[in-house]
């Protein structure tokens, strides 16, 4: 017997506004809405609704809304409705619970417990509309050795760098987990913005080779789609050791999403589940990692920076120290709120640590060991606004990765049902009729708008602090103060409490 579960959300139709145009019915891949020809009225089956808001957004008479159901079991602070329902679901199915996108649990968000400084009287603020303000940055090794040629001139010993016009890049999202059109939108936006998007572990579709100058290609534990042209068509190569949403486990792309095109790009058979192992089977130490870093550098003639991406975990600082010594140029850290196309619910919700704490500890450790210049630091895992970017940079990051925010710009409404493959917004799906709903001509402009808006806001916030470049803000933790934090949190974040002066 399957236990009946009352729908978590209910579709509410304002009958006085519904014109029975059936747009909601045509746009719902979950078949929530239906039209009764006899009565001429629409009805909705809330049990099928994932709360993606596609119908709400497209309804021409704004007759629809979705509300949280008020059906409840007897109120219990320990056994809340969701916890009980999850037990019922597992008793029904016997399976691991799957979820998508980032950790939704009410853990503290440290970005929201940090406040930014501003200049008053003694150090004037800068007006970014009237004075130069630099948000362009470079990622890569800063350390150089002084060498001279036979004529005594300085040799250029600077390692390859990535030049970003804004300190924001698009996170790794694979073709397969997201659609062709979503990838095209990200690639075109990265090109126009002068920044980078990341292929994720799904290989690079041949159509996107032309965006190579703005592409970071990923080499993950499954090595999907990795070959000579893939590496050569990239601006940088990222070795994915872990992902914030699911630290310690690999990936699983269901066979239904391995269409002909995805199969060719990933170089795996069509219709067969793509499983990337939890570890890289050739990496069990920093020395092993170093071998892969240098294999990739050797393969690309030392022309491209190599990034190593890890999930934010308890000993991230020590791991980062090892990575900095492995020859990697850039370390990317992904916090536990980072998104995913599919993850076991328990892992998404309970494994890893906040990116803010990991960043503070990694930056401090690299500074203490005198190797901060060996690498650039990129952080992701729920960077939600330009304020988060400013705080991350002041904490010590060189740049941020945004994934969820980018998908929101493309239409995602965070229904967290990516793993079902029926994304009504044409993002996390391979169904052709759904993929076409995301027109990249519109999508890339929305991405460009978003990042451009953030760039303006970053300039304004920096101006207020009297700082005129991202380079000067980086690691400037005196610009941050904590609010509502304990002594331990302040110590880990390396910031003072609001009200404490310089």
């Amino acid at each position, binding site marked *: 017997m399957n236990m009946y579960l009352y729908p978590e959300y209910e579709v509410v139709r304002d009958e006085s506004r519904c*014109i029975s*145009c059936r747009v909601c019915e*045509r746009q719902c891949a979950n078949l929530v809405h239906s039209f009764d020809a006899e009565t001429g009225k629409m009805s909705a089956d809330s049990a099928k609704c994932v709360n993606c808001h596609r119908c709400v957004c*497209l309804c*021409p*008479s704004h007759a629809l809304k979705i509300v949280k159901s008020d059906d409840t079991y007897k109120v219990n602070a320990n056994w809340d409705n969701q916890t009980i329902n999850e037990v019922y679901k597992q008793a029904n199915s016997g399976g691991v619970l799957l979820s998508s996108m980032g950790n939704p649990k009410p853990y503290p968000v440290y970005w929201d417990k940090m406040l930014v400084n501003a200049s008053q009287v003694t150090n004037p603020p800068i007006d970014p509309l009237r004075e130069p303000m630099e948000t362009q940055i470079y990622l890569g090794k800063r350390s150089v050795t002084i060498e001279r040629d036979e004529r005594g001139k300085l040799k250029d010993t600077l390692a390859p760098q990535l030049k970003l016009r804004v300190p924001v890049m698009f996170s790794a999202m694979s073709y397969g987990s997201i659609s062709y059109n979503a990838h095209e939108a990200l690639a075109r936006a990265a090109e126009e913005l002068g920044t980078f998007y990341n292929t994720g572990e799904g290989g690079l579709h041949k159509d996107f080779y032309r965006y190579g100058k703005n592409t970071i290609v990923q080499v993950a534990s499954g090595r999907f789609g990795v070959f000579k042209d893939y590496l050569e068509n990239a601006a940088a190569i990222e070795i994915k050791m872990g992902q914030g949403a699911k630290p310690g486990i690999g990936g699983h792309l269901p066979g239904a999403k391995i269409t002909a095109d995805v199969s060719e790009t990933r170089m795996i058979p069509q219709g067969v589940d793509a499983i990337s192992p939890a570890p890289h089977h050739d990496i069990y130490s920093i020395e092993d990692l170093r071998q892969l870093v240098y294999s990739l550098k050797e393969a690309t003639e030392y022309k491209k920076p190599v990034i190593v991406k890890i999930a934010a975990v308890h000993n991230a600082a020590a791991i980062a120290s090892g990575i900095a010594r492995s020859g990697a140029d850039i370390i990317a850290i992904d916090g536990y709120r980072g998104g995913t196309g599919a993850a076991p619910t328990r892992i998404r919700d309970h494994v890893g640590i906040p990116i803010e704490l990991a960043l503070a500890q990694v930056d401090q450790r690299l500074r203490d060991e005198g190797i901060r210049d060996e690498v650039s630091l990129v952080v992701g895992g729920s960077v939600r606004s330009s304020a988060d970017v400013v705080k991350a940079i002041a904490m010590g990051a060189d740049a941020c990765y945004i994934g969820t925010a980018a998908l929101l710009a493309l239409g995602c409404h965070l229904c967290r049902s990516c793993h079902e493959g029926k994304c009504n917004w044409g993002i996390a799906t391979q169904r052709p009729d759904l993929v*076409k709903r995301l027109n990249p001509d519109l999508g890339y402009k929305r991405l460009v708008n978003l990042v451009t808006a953030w760039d303006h806001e970053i300039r304004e916030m920096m101006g207020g602090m009297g700082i005129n470049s991202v380079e000067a803000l980086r690691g400037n933790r005196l610009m941050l103060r904590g609010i509502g934090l304990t002594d331990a949190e302040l110590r880990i974040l390396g910031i003072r409490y609001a009200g404490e002066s310089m």
Partner: protein
Amino acid sequence: MKRVYVNEKWCLGCHLCEYECAFAATGLSDIVKALKGKPVYPRIRVEEGDGVCFSVNCRHCREPLCVQSCISGALSVGGDGVVRIDREKCVGCLTCVLVCPYGAVMPAPDGHAAMKCQLCTDNACGEPNCVKHCPNNAIVYEERG
């Protein structure tokens, strides 16, 4: 001249254009008041079949068959290139409906005249309402040689 073009690659078959067209023609400001409980008479139609869908409305042909065939001189090409119909002159013979190769002229709701897309020059929208409300940019209004 600027015309309405459709790109079937991006058409979702949502039929929003039809309702927005019918709404524009009513001249009302509230879509609920305009369309609720009433038959809908759009001048644009979504055609569907075999996984392809696209909307069709008047192409505003350079040498329109509808204008040539009109027995009462109700149909004409304006100086702006827009093919218009004069309801006062139309006798409702519907020859234009029969000759239009795109099926873009249709009988008006009262049955006494024909009606067609006039690029929203005959209402207060200012620009084609179907284009304005297409959620996926499948319908565009642009100059193409």
